[in-house]
């Protein structure tokens, strides 16, 4: 059991998300940076769960810290690991490294500060955060009010149940990720995409501009969508009249569509492309210029307000190869040393 002393800016229980909810309007939710949460779970000996979006297995639940800050007190001995954004964490005032498992003894306090690089930090605990499963996952969806701890962010005096230990504390402490695999969150973030289903609705110049621009993250970005500040994009002329009747005059409006999956880049009115994220609506109605590949949604989750993102277009085959490579890395026992 862990006791919350300070819940921070927005800390939620997350795993690798909920599958099968799209046709009900229920988003997948789960960690915005799935790679960081899965590594944190591996470091403390938990199941890491299946790949993001496909969600065959939600894995163990941990905490997602938005821009850092969290204070927890251990009510018994626990093995923890922090990954993702570096929050300069300390245990009773003594620094603990990122991407490395450590012991938090009964009565000790873990304090995470504000993230210095990257936007989200992840905390895993051996045994996993043991809140009830809702529709196959422990992921919190705040606006729907379900999953996680009572469907809401953590608050002072919450108690976080932890699943039963299956290994000795001494065997799990001090494990770290192979250093070459620790990601850098230094901007500009390179994010790979495949062409979107309505790329042909945009002018050739606008498609070129989309890939040439260093887009700044709008600070209103959240787990629903990341808005990007940059040049206005324009649409090809010749929109049919029946579409104007159906979906309005704005050329970015298309007839309702399954806007998912996570990663879709919509461009309402040609202004501020939005990367749909893990809590995004299951349908859309705006032209989609690109789709971020599953593997790189982890990087999108680490962009800080006003930091820059550059998109790089790759083929569908290369996107699948990137996912296969990531899954091979996660499955390789030698990445934890």
């Amino acid at each position, binding site marked *: 059991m862990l006791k919350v002393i300070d819940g921070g800016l927005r800390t939620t229980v997350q795993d690798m998300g909920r*599958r099968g909810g*799209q046709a009900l309007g229920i988003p997948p939710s789960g960690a915005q940076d799935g790679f960081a949460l899965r590594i944190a779970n591996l470091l403390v000996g938990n199941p890491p769960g299946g790949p993001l979006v496909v969600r065959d297995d939600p894995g163990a639940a941990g905490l997602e810290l938005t821009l850092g800050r969290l204070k927890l007190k251990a009510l018994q001995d626990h093995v923890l690991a922090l990954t993702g954004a570096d929050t300069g964490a300390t245990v009773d005032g003594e620094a603990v490294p990122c991407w490395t498992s450590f012991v938090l003894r009964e009565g000790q306090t873990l304090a995470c500060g504000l993230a210095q690089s990257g936007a989200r930090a992840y905390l895993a605990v051996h045994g996993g955060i043991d809140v009830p499963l809702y529709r196959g996952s422990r992921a919190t969806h705040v606006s729907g009010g*379900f999953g996680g701890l009572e469907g809401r962010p953590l608050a002072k005096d919450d108690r976080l149940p932890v699943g039963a230990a299956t290994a000795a504390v001494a065997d799990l402490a001090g494990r770290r990720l192979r250093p070459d695999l620790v990601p850098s969150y230094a901007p500009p973030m390179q994010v790979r995409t495949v062409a979107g289903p309505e790329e042909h609705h945009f002018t050739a110049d606008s498609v070129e501009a989309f890939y040439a621009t260093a887009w700044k993250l709008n600070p209103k970005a959240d787990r629903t969508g990341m808005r990007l500040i940059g040049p206005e994009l324009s649409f090809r002329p010749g929109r049919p009249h029946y579409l104007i009747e159906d979906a309005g005059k704005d050329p970015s409006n298309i007839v309702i*569509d399954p806007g*998912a999956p996570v990663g879709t880049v919509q461009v309402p009115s040609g202004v501020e492309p939005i990367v749909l994220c893990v809590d995004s*609506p299951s349908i859309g109605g705006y032209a989609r210029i690109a789709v971020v*590949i599953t593997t790189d949604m982890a990087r999108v989750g680490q962009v800080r307000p006003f930091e820059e993102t550059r998109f790089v277009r790759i083929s*569908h085959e290369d996107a699948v190869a990137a996912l296969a490579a990531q899954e091979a890395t996660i499955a390789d026992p030698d990445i934890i040393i």
Partner: protein
Amino acid sequence: MIYDEPIFRTLGDTAINVEFGDESSIPINFRILALDFALREHPPKGLAETNPQVRTLGLVFNPLATTRARIVDHVKALIAAQGTVETLPSRRVIIPALYDDPWSRECAEAFGVRNNIEYIAEFNDMTVAQVIETHTGCDYWVTGVGFVPGAFMSYAMDPGKRFGAPLYRTPRTWTHARLLNFGGLTSTIYPIRIPGGGQLFGRTPIEIFDLREISPAFADGPVLACAGDRHRYESIGREEYDAIRADVEAGTYAYRVEDGTFDCAGYVAWLAEIGEPAERLDPESLWKPV
């Protein structure tokens, strides 16, 4: 328009949209829902989930268990075997609603616009009474469920009674739960308190999204609406609204949901009879589906 052959659009590494056309219509939705049922009966290996919407079926697959090409081939074979959609399973759901309600008025006032039902009436050259009469005067076909948990899209099944109003130019930052609203020609209900731009005209006392899942209407999950449902609205007064609401909160309300089958081919024939075109075309358009 409805395409000669559905277009398979790639969305990243894990999803495909099967697009039957670029317009919204109930006949195009019959084909989407029939394909969704066929996929549920004969799912290809590696298919993770489906998301049927008005003109498009969303598919999510695991590219490490199958390939995009295999999913496309499987779906093409199902479409080829399908032919005309004769019937679909379709429930009929009666939704009681208090029209021109105080909560819709409160939302309008909070965002400095006039009572939305009066705007809807003016926009359609109707009286408020005619808005209510028209909205309760025919069934609404649910083309898909989604957006936020429990939300759905529906269209009037009688083209003569199809009406609506444009969305707000700037969406509200909040809307009460369970408010009936129009977004263009789409009629829907906000399941939970969320931002939104729909024109508000009534409130239902029944839950559209209920995490308690205590009524048999929520046996399959927290969402009342199901793609292919026929919704029928019933105008009620404040006293009945309050009585139903108390029963809903107590968990004793009996939701009025009837299982059934809908004669899709008969409906398409009826549309032809009344002179409703099966699809919309624009010969002057430069726009070609790619």
